[in-house]
């Protein structure tokens, strides 16, 4: 008998609770556990593994550059974020929703933080899955949006996204005031991922309230950098780097940045099949490199990826 080589890692990924049910003072219909593993993804023969969760993207106002393939898929729902999210959870089985409040951007529609918070409130009533509240990326506006939206979702243990080096304080304040988790964003850079966690903890945020977003890039668009950054973060965590022992989230919708994924081109095969597999393959890269939560766009990608995760969990 050949001896099966097993690694015994010294570190463990923290288990972050995402979503609060009635027991925890929230109104979500489920709580998701992100992380908690003691080895690399799905290698249950040598340690504890954790099931990655699959969420779907919902955007408050879809821009004109949004892929038509997705607009066609959801039809009129895409103009109504609550109905869209409802379908994601109750028709397509998303574990959670990532609500992107892009229209709050002062350079776009400049929707007010109050209106964004009203949308979050309605969303929480209509859709009971855990929620990520993501700002537009405008630091100044996001501070206000996160404050009001976080408050509207008080006690629901949402994820607030994204805390970066230059705006982490405002996100951290909003999250701690209302009991949410922080998504700490870094741009495919292990050192910055660690740095931002150090800054957040120095600011008083416990590591149990942090999820790392190391920026997932889709295939053909730098997936190899993202893959290696995530793998390095996970390995550093498993070998004892406490500051990186937070679960990771990967937004796979970046896969749609590659127009080649879905433009009509007979030589590249049916564009619908190609687009879905492009997203699925990008999701697999995130899962293989250690993502604990992924965000997808196409309902079929969700169905396929869920089946794959079931099988990988064994």
């Amino acid at each position: 008998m050949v001896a099966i080589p097993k690694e015994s890692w010294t570190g463990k990924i923290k288990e972050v609770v995402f979503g609060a049910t009635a027991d925890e003072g929230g109104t979500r219909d489920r709580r998701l556990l992100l992380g908690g593993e003691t080895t690399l993804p799905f290698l249950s023969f040598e340690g504890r593994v954790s099931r990655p969760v699959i969420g779907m993207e919902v955007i408050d106002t879809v821009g004109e550059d949004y892929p038509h393939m997705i607009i066609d898929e959801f039809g009129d729902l895409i103009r109504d974020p609550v109905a869209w999210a409802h379908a994601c959870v109750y028709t397509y089985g998303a574990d959670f929703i990532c609500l992107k409040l892009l229209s709050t951007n002062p350079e776009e529609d400049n929707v007010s933080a109050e209106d964004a918070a009203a949308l979050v409130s309605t969303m929480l009533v209509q859709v009971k899955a855990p929620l990520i509240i993501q700002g537009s990326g405008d630091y100044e506006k996001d501070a206000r949006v996160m404050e009001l939206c976080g408050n509207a979702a008080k006690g629901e243990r949402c994820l607030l996204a994204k805390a970066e080096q230059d705006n982490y304080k405002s996100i951290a304040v909003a999250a701690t005031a209302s009991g949410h988790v922080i998504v700490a964003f870094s741009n495919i850079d292990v050192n910055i991922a660690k740095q931002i966690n150090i800054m957040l903890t120095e600011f008083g945020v416990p590591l149990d309230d942090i999820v790392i977003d190391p920026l997932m890039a889709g295939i053909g668009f730098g997936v190899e950098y993202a893959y290696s950054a995530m793998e390095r973060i996970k390995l550093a965590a498993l070998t004892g780097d406490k500051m990186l022992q937070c679960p990771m989230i990967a937004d796979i919708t970046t896969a749609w940045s590659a127009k080649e994924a879905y433009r009509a081109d007979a030589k590249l095969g049916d564009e619908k099949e190609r687009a879905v597999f492009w997203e699925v393959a990008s999701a697999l890269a995130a899962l293989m490199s250690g993502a604990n939560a992924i965000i997808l766009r196409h309902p079929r990608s969700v169905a396929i990826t869920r089946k794959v995760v079931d099988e990988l969990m064994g």
Partner: protein
Amino acid sequence: MAMPMTALDIFKLLAKKNCGECGVPTCLAFAMMLANKQTELSKCPYVSPEASQQLESTSLPPMRTVTIGDFDIGGETELFRHDKKFINQTAYAVVIEDRLDNAAIIERAKKFDAMKFERIGIISGVDSIAIKSTGHAQRFAEAVQLVQDNSALPFVLMSNDPQVIEAGLKLVSKAKPLIYSGTVHNCAAMAKLAKQYACPLAISSDDVDELIELSEVAKSEGVDDVVLDLNLGNQTLHNVLEWLTVLRRLSVRKLFRPLGYPIMINLDNGADIEAQAVTAAIGTMKYASLIIFGDLDPARLYPLATLRTNIYTDPQALIQVNPGLYEIGKPNRRSPVIVTANFSLTYFTVASDIEASKVPAYLLVVDTEGLSVMTAFAADKFTPETIAEALEQSKVADKVDHRKLTIPGMIAMMKMKLEDLTGWEVIVGVKDSSGLPKYLKEIAKG
């Protein structure tokens, strides 16, 4: 990880005769060359069998490189690509069964031969055709001939019957097909064929210990080029990932010789194309060197081949796009001309942000040796001179009526110098590419 032997360790095991028959004057010099893998132990006529055994186990690479036709698989040394480049990318083969009629065989051979794509200068696609026998040597030979006549791709010859395999080998052994496969029932006979025709041999078993025995059978028959098949194609994804990881660790970390060969997955199991493609994507990232598909279409192969190219790039090398003038959208004579660096992530980001703006533009990609804008600027690779030269070479002046050049906001300081050199009006653009859509829309409005 087992440490490689130093020259001194090796020297201690040599005969120390300094005879020079190996072509090197002293045994120490020979030992140094061995340690650097610049020579082979077999060149020493006086090495003892014990020393030979000890040296062989440390001087061999952890995983053998196996050549099938015109490509190599295996030769891997790492578990994680950030440590060092994965060496030989996962090869993709697709099955053609000899029970198909001739027209169908020809059609599939042509289809898979043509199923390749060029993407940023790299051509990637189907690497091999696996011809699968229904058990009749003559029909198999016909099928092999048909495929050979209609495709330039290397072969995998699939049968459990050595006679069938030999019928194929007689036709195409010079093309170094992979013999698939030696099993517990036929391994010695298959290994003899592999030796006789100098072709690589795949060995198959569900059981890892049995696979080790087969590997020893192949070795005892003098076959060095072996590919391992643990019948993972019929396993759950959980087991596929676990076994691929275990086998890779055994070869590159434990230097376990009987399994020091590339691993393959045979997906010709009746699963739909999508399920096969999912397994293949996982296998491409996690340690499969060869994947045989029952079937494959461009909609799955194009993303897979892209993923494969990405995963097998050298993490230490910067990824570059070819310098030159790129058209984003359909630019006309009034479209803006925008300058950027040739680091691939920079290019992709800028190109995608221009595309998002819906404002067609010329993107002038300057050769910054793969460095991003600020790094290249700091390293003197992105200077008024290099930009002026790129502008000149691009001949974009013939394509637009204006003389306005937009440079990245981060290098605003070179505006004057660049204007002097080119005679163009230099516009300082946005500092971050994400601001491009807004910026371009404003430009378009005038």
